[in-house]
């Protein structure tokens, strides 16, 4: 565990190229975006004023937060169950869980979004099957709405939610669980009053990661929302590329980045970065 000066210098040198790249490719251009938000179309705080009064912008923010919250709850809950099997299941169960967690990483977000369209659309697999077995007579509207967006985003984000949970579950001392049972606690009670509270840092880390990712989603809501469930990232795109309203687009970007930055600061107060992988 030595951390001499030369070790630190070495580490700094190794990280330098990445840091330089991040500064040139992200931080520097972002400063330009900040500048636009105060200068376009006229200098002043006009765009931030518009953010507070524009009904459309506000409804998009509210929708984004709502979708992000729902996706977070569903993803973390589903990831918790999968992680439980991955970390504490039989060897065969672990293998299956690991496969389910890793395979999604090999398929692009675009492919997955179109996959969900194929499954969920009016003439998609799910509606066709449900009609074939006579369960429904009219197709259900499962896509091009908020429901479709939530399904697609949850599917994408579950694997990311797994890692902080797995880290928390792996570091848990089994003897504490034995102790609970030895003291007369049923398996169910041990799970809820000992196991779950002891994985709290994992739950918080997992939820914050999913929530932060959700706020910036673009492709999935654009495809599965069909223009009817616009989220913040898509709104920024529309403001900058479709209506020439660069100042407002820039102001929304700045607010989003500040909000995400605050959440990340909160995240690292609760968990160390190494617990996320």
């Amino acid at each position: 565990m030595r951390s001499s000066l030369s070790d630190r210098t070495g580490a700094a040198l190794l990280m330098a190229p990445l840091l330089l790249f991040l500064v040139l490719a992200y931080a520097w251009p972002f400063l330009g975006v900040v500048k636009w938000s105060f200068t376009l179309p006229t200098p002043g705080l006009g765009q931030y004023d518009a953010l507070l009064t524009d009904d459309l912008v506000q409804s998009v923010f509210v929708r984004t937060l709502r979708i992000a919250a729902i996706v977070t709850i569903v993803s973390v809950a589903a990831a918790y169950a999968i992680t439980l099997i991955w970390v504490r299941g039989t060897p065969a169960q672990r293998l299956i869980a690991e496969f389910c967690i890793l395979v999604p990483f090999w398929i692009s977000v675009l492919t997955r979004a179109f996959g969900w369209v194929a499954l969920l659309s009016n003439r998609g697999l799910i509606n066709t099957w449900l009609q074939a077995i006579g369960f429904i007579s009219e197709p259900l509207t499962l896509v091009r709405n908020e429901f479709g967006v939530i399904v697609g985003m949850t599917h994408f984000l579950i694997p990311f939610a797994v890692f902080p949970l797995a880290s928390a579950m792996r570091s848990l001392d089994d003897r504490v669980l034995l102790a609970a049972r030895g003291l007369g606690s049923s398996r169910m009670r041990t799970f809820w009053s000992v196991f779950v509270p002891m994985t709290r840092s994992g739950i918080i880390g997992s939820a914050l990661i999913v929530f932060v990712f959700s706020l910036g989603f673009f492709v999935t809501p654009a495809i599965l929302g069909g223009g009817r469930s616009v989220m913040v990232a898509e709104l920024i795109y529309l403001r900058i590329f479709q209506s020439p309203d660069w100042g407002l687009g820039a102001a929304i970007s700045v607010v989003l980045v500040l909000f995400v930055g605050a959440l990340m600061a909160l995240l690292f107060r609760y968990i160390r970065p190494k617990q996320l992988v």
Partner: protein
Amino acid sequence: MQQPGRAAEIKANGIGKSFGSFRALDNLTLDIGRGEFLTLLGPSGSGKTTFLMILAGFVQPTEGRLFSDGTDITDRPAEQRAAGMVFQGYALFPHMSVEQNIAFPLKVRKKSAAEIKKRVGEMIERVGLVGHEKKLPAQLSGGQQQRVALARALVFEPGVLLLDEPFSALDKSLRGQMQAEMKRLHQETGTTFVFVTHDQSEALALSSRVAIFNHGKLLQVGAPDEVYDRPANRFVAEFLGEINMLPLKGVRRADNGATGLCEDRAVSLRGNPGSVGGNAILAIRPEYMSIAGEASAGENGVAATATNSTYLGAATRLDLTTRQGAKVTVSVPNEVAAAALSKGNSVWLTWPAEKGFLLPDGGQ
């Protein structure tokens, strides 16, 4: 183990446990008396912890039955046996305060809030944790965590308390303090204690009986002085403390004991010599041996040469070699050691007849 406030009586009948091809415990039959303080002693891998886990219900035996107060509890899950248990490393709930940890077994038993408050308060006082009620385990010292673990395991008045090497993480002075504390708790609660350790002095100091394990087998069980002074075999003799062994020839039964030839000198033993005849090993604890210039007629003795001495402060440890090459170690007063060393090759080691015992010649 189900009646609160009443010490349990446990019978293990032919208990065996295999993990794959590894035989962790073999045909163990043992009665644990009501209110007894029984120590399971043995090196690691001897089966003592496996037996404790079987008593707790965390490990299912491959064969044999387990009875508590006459009821067969072999198939009863751990949470229904509810033996109090103190783990190595304490296994406290890290997210609960001292108070909440101790209240846990009462909460799962759905006791009323008033009763929980009263009993947790009493227990905190009994183990000396007043003022620490709201702290988390991470804010406590090792000794304090130990007390929480004991309080949590005793608060619901279990019929038996199981302790798995509870003091292994404590430093020496704290360990002595906690041992005294545990002895006191045993007397106050009257509960049956089953204690696992690999430390022989701890076992001898605390227990009403000691059960010695090796390679999955129970070798001997008895009161501390019984197993120390009359070990059943060589392993027990050596595990419980230092022992000197001298080859003995022509062993035969005599008046209230046995006689034999130790390096051509007749020596005698008291007590039951067991199966006597032919060759055997005479075993004597070092502290029962003394050094003399000459052994008087009829006294047990063997001539030896001092080869090495180690100053221990209160005494000196002397290593000696007999004429026929047996190695002997004794602990003697410093001036006796100095005299023995200056005399060169002519000292006698003597011992009282009742302190020697026989072990089978060779092996266990």
